[in-house]
């Protein structure tokens, strides 16, 4: 068990063994292991199959950039996640891990036939193959591609986990807790700033964990990490581990995803799984380090082939040797040290194969002292082994000529093609990059945000360089924030500085067209694919990327982008910066949907506004409908009624007795000030000067384009005080529009606006019995028709509650609207309901309200208008004050297209058979026999069955409609053509006699 574990080495907890399953088999590791480190400790390198060719793959790295070791993980019912990076996921007892993209098993996979046919699946294969015949696309190609696409299995159950989010403000946000980040956080926090330090790993330390031999100011690296973190915490620094900075947005807003429970075997049920942090930082320090690049050669993807730095990490962090018998192939000094560490730990290093002719003297000495064979000026040209590497083929390269091959047996191959500064977050800010020809890499250049880049992220190499740069950048950030900061200089011994060179694919003596030399491991893109893309005309890296899919997998090309660029640039014969680098986008690493959704699921998905009377409606069986953010009672079914039955009864009761309706959602704005009437005159189309206190008027609001925006009944309470009502959906927008005019155009007016929508509960009583019901409850006002005629308003007391009482009707019946403070809304409703029983009262909902108003020809803004309808079009030009000097929309109404003939105008429609109910939204034509496509001349905006009229009624917007009254229009429907007469819009009580009871 754990044959490859070195007792006493690494940071796992040997006293806490952990067992989990991999493809059903129990695997043991220790607390602190990742899935990968535990598998490697057991000698298991084969962890998955590749996306396209189903090639056997193992972990190629030890970090979040892993392209190969993607597995399914299951933590419990509904808690399955595909494509978990095995190099990141910590193990706990009971974790279920499954390999992906294989059938029937990981070691024998039928899909691997793709690998033998690899010559067919070159870049652009899909574009070329599935072009013809065209008819095959829907039935054959598209379903085939769909089933083949995607890696892993999508979860099919509801996710039972909780997700959370928070806002955080900090002076300095340091991203990455390696040497540079730790030193930066120390500098900034010692200067007295609020500092937040985040790292995606379970513990701080970064590279220092893999370099335990380093001594910093006389303290061994691991001890230095512990004491530094302790000091940071004592200085009040928020140190957040398992926290990935996923995106860097405008004005130093950084998104963090903190993983809280994925590493726990039995987390508290109220604990969220992940928490999204929206951080606003005054200064950001990016200390993300550098990522190691693979070398590109035939067979560089076989299980057992791994980045040298990662092998060093497995050894020092987890105490795991990745093999017994290693060959190192490198173009960078760092891999030599990895080889030394492994050799010292007991792994046989067959050879260090360096592409460079003359490795540094001290490296050669180090290798010789360990009796390691040195092959300098060599290339790797192939590997052997089915499910694990068995040998590597190497050749000397002399004066550009590839010499005779030699085969070295091995069970693992450690490669290093150098290091790429991690500039993903910097790239999110649209910061400019500059090409460093010496280092053959991009470095950060012009900044667009308040940030600094420290350490290996800007091309510095070695622990001392990273520490000192971090300290300096922390001090820069502190000084920018007007703090005094000292530039700490660290004394570092046993630092391993070094250099390297960069390559395209390594030279080979074999046919390069047949080499399976992988650049993008996750998307199975080879060097050959990239060269083919260039040959086929892709000359920008953006085109090459899309044609080959290089760098387009979920790892965003962390390993592949630079190798891909080098090869494309070489194929084009241009320097790299002329070919360009693709843009990195958030998130930095794959992030769960849950983290983004946060609390907004289930009952908390979005705001549902409820009126004070909503609870009564619910208790009385109302069926609700959403109206903007509100939920409103749509109808109140009784004795198993369906909607039509309920609406028919509610309409009849209201017209014959009395109905009550919860109108609390109507927007309400209080307008106060000596210039209130002038403001009203300018805002609404109607004249207001002569409206006496105690009277109300229908108000019509236009946009400055002349189109109808809103309407409502407006009461004048006193000379200087108006009570405006708006439509339910537009209340906030109307108030904003008014404030906008007041604050920008009419600053001279002494008038103020206050939203009172929610202060008032509004109960509408309509019907011939409305006065009889209400009268006994009203104190301070005679509500007879003489004393309180239609369109009156008064402040009085209703059922003991302070009230604003309107005499108004949206049904055509005798009507009142009682406004009382919202806290009394339900009590008043109950009082009126109880008292109304003797008058045969019913509660009605929005559906009945719609029918009753349509019978009377009252429009609903937003249903019978759509933002292109003028008052003339809607037939309500009587609401325009013709003699007023100005109002919002007056000049808009004079535009030529608004006064032209042939505009769509609101008309009534009666289907000629007297029975057919039109469908809202149905299109109108003048000639049903014309060829398709027919000329459409309008559409139905409202349509209901009307008991009062005894037939269906409808409104429509019809081209030149006002002149077509009496004509016939046709409504072609799937079942056949319906014919309808064009009429006026008032279907019931055209003289309005019922209002005047």
């Amino acid at each position, binding site marked *: 068990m754990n044959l490859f574990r070195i007792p006493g080495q690494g940071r796992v907890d040997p006293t806490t063994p952990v067992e989990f399953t991999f493809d059903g088999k129990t695997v043991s590791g220790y607390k602190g292991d990742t899935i990968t480190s535990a598998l490697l400790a057991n000698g298991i390198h084969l962890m998955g199959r590749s996306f396209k060719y189903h090639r056997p793959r193992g972990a190629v790295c030890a970090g979040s950039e892993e392209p190969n070791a993607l597995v399914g993980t299951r933590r419990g019912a509904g808690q399955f996640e595909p494509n978990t990076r095995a190099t990141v996921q910590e193990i706990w007892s009971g974790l279920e891990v499954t390999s992906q993209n294989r059938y029937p098993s990981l070691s024998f996979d039928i899909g691997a036939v793709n690998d033998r046919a690899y010559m067919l699946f070159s870049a652009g294969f899909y574009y070329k193959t599935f072009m013809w015949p065209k008819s095959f696309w829907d039935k054959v190609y598209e379903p085939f591609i769909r089933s083949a696409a995607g890696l892993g299995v999508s979860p099919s159950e509801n996710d039972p986990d*909780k997700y*959370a*989010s*928070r*806002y*955080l*403000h900090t002076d300095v946000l340091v991203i990455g807790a390696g040497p540079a980040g730790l030193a930066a956080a120390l500098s900034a926090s010692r200067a007295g700033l*609020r500092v937040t330090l985040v790292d995606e790993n379970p513990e701080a330390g970064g590279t220092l964990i893999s370099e335990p031999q380093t001594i910093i100011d006389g303290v061994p690296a691991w001890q230095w990490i512990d004491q530094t973190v302790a000091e940071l915490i004592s200085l009040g620094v928020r140190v957040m581990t398992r926290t990935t900075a996923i995106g860097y947005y405008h004005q130093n807003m950084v998104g963090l995803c903190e993983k809280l429970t994925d590493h726990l075997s039995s987390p*508290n*049920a*109220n*604990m*969220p799984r992940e928490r999204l942090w*929206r951080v*606003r930082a005054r200064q950001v320090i990016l200390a993300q380090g550098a990522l190691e690049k693979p070398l590109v050669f035939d067979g560089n993807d076989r299980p057992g082939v791994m980045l040298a730095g990662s092998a060093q990490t497995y050894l020092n962090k987890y105490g795991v040797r990745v093999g017994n018998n290693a060959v190192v192939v490198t173009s960078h000094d760092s891999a030599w040290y990895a080889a030394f560490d492994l050799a010292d730990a007991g792994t046989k290093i067959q050879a260090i194969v360096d592409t460079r002719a003359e490795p540094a003297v001290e490296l050669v000495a180090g290798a010789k002292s360990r009796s390691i064979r040195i092959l300098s000026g060599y290339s790797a040209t192939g590997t052997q082994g089915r499910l694990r590497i068995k040998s590597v083929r190497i050749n000397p390269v002399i004066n550009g000529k590839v010499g005779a091959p030699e085969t070295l047996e091995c069970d693992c191959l450690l490669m290093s093609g150098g290091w790429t500064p991690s500039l993903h977050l910097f790239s999110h800010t649209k910061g400019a990059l500059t090409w460093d020809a010496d280092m053959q890499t991009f470095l950060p250049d012009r900044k667009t945000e308040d940030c600094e880049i420290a350490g290996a992220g800007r091309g510095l190499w070695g622990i001392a360089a990273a520490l000192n740069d971090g300290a300096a950048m922390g001090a820069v950030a502190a000084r920018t924030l007007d703090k005094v900061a000292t530039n700490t200089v660290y004394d570092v011994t046993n630092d391993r500085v070094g250099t390297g060179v960069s390559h395209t694919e390594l030279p080979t003596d074999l046919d390069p067209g047949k080499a399976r030399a992988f650049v993008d491991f996750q998307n199975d893109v080879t060097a050959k694919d990239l060269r083919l893309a260039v040959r086929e005309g892709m000359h920008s890296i953006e085109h090459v990327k899309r044609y080959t899919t290089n760098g387009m997998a979920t790892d965003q090309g962390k390993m592949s982008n630079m190798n891909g660029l080098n090869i494309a640039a070489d194929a084009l014969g241009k320097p790299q910066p002329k070919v360009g680098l693709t843009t990195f986008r958030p998130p930095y690493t794959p992030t769960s949907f849950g983290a983004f959704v946060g*609390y907004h699921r289930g*009952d*908390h998905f979005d*705001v*549902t*506004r*409820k*009126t*004070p009377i*909503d*609870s009564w409606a619910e208790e009385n069986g109302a069926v609700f409908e959403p109206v903007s953010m*509100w939920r409103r009672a749509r109808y109140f079914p009784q004795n198993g009624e369906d909607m039509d039955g309920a609406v028919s009864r509610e309409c009849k009761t209201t017209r014959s007795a009395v109905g009550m309706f919860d109108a609390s959602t109507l927007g309400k704005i*209080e307008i*106060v*000030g*000596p210039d209130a009437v002038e403001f009203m005159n300018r805002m609404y189309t109607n004249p207001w000067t002569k409206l006496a206190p105690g009277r109300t008027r229908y108000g019509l609001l236009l946009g400055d384009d002349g189109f109808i925006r809103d309407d409502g009944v407006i009461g004048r309470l006193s000379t*200087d005080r108006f009570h405006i009502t708006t439509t339910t959906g537009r209340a906030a927008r109307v108030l904003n529009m008014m404030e906008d005019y007041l604050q920008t155009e009419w600053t001279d007016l*002494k*008038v*103020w606006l*206050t*939203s*009172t*929508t*929610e*202060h*008032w509960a509004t109960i509408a009583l309509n019907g011939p019995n409305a006065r009889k019901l209400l009268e006994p409850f009203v104190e301070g006002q005679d509500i007879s028709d003489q004393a309180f005629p239609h369109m009156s308003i008064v402040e009085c007391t209703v059922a003991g509650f302070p009230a604003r009482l309107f005499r108004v009707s949206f049904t055509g019946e005798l009507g009142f609207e009682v406004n009382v*403070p*919202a*806290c*009394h809304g*339900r009590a008043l409703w109950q009082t009126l309901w109880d008292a109304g029983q003797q008058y045969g009262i019913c509660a009605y909902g929005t559906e009945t309200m719609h029918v009753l108003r349509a019978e009377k020809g009252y429009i609903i803004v937003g249903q019978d208008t759509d933002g292109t309808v003028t008052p003339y079009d809607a037939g309500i030009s009587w609401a325009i004050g013709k003699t007023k000097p100005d109002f919002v929309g007056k000049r808009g109404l004079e535009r030529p297209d608004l006064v032209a003939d042939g505009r769509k105008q609101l008309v009534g429609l009666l289907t000629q058979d007297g029975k057919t109910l039109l469908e809202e939204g149905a299109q109108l034509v003048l000639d049903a026999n014309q060829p398709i496509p027919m000329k459409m001349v309008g559409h139905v905006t409202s349509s209901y069955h009307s008991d009062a009229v005894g037939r269906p009624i409808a409104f429509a917007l019809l081209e030149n409609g006002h002149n077509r009254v009496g004509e016939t229009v046709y409504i072609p429907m799937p079942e056949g053509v319906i014919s309808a007469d064009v009429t006026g819009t008032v279907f019931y009580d055209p003289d309005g006699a019922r209002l005047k009871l």
Partner: protein
Amino acid sequence: MMALTPEFTPGQLVSGDVVSVSLMAPVARFSLRLRAADIPAVSTAIGVDLPTRIGACAHHETVEVMCLGPDEWQIQTDANDSVRLINACAAIYAQVPHSLTDISAREVTISIEGPGAVDLLSIGCPRDIDKIAIGTGCRTVFDGVSTVLWRDGETRFRLDIWRSFAPHVIGLIQTGCAELAAQ
């Protein structure tokens, strides 16, 4: 954890060591709007010096005022005091035009107290709570809903929420309390 009633019955909603949340009893609440030049006259009339820095608060006996904008204040006081306030303002209206509008029933208030109060607010409020001094406040949002936040102490806050949005906001507050308790 107690459920919020549809009638908004005042009382404790969450009790705990980390944070407790209560729905407070109703108060009289007004929106006051006026021009800067008229601040002294109105201050004299209502008996409280209107603060002029946005977010600043002033108190006198039962009256509390927060400055919400350059021409906007929120006033709250005991229900018994509201008539005095209305009459005081009405008396000077002819000389000093302004708007005093009753919004008592427009919103409800919850109190949030305890060592977890700041963390709890951070789940929905994008403001830097550390920068809101004790005895001041601000109009802000909580989970996208417009609210007025009062800071009464290091770990004591009040949050005014429009009625129809209150169940949404309080629901999230309760979720947050459970989350904080689990930490």
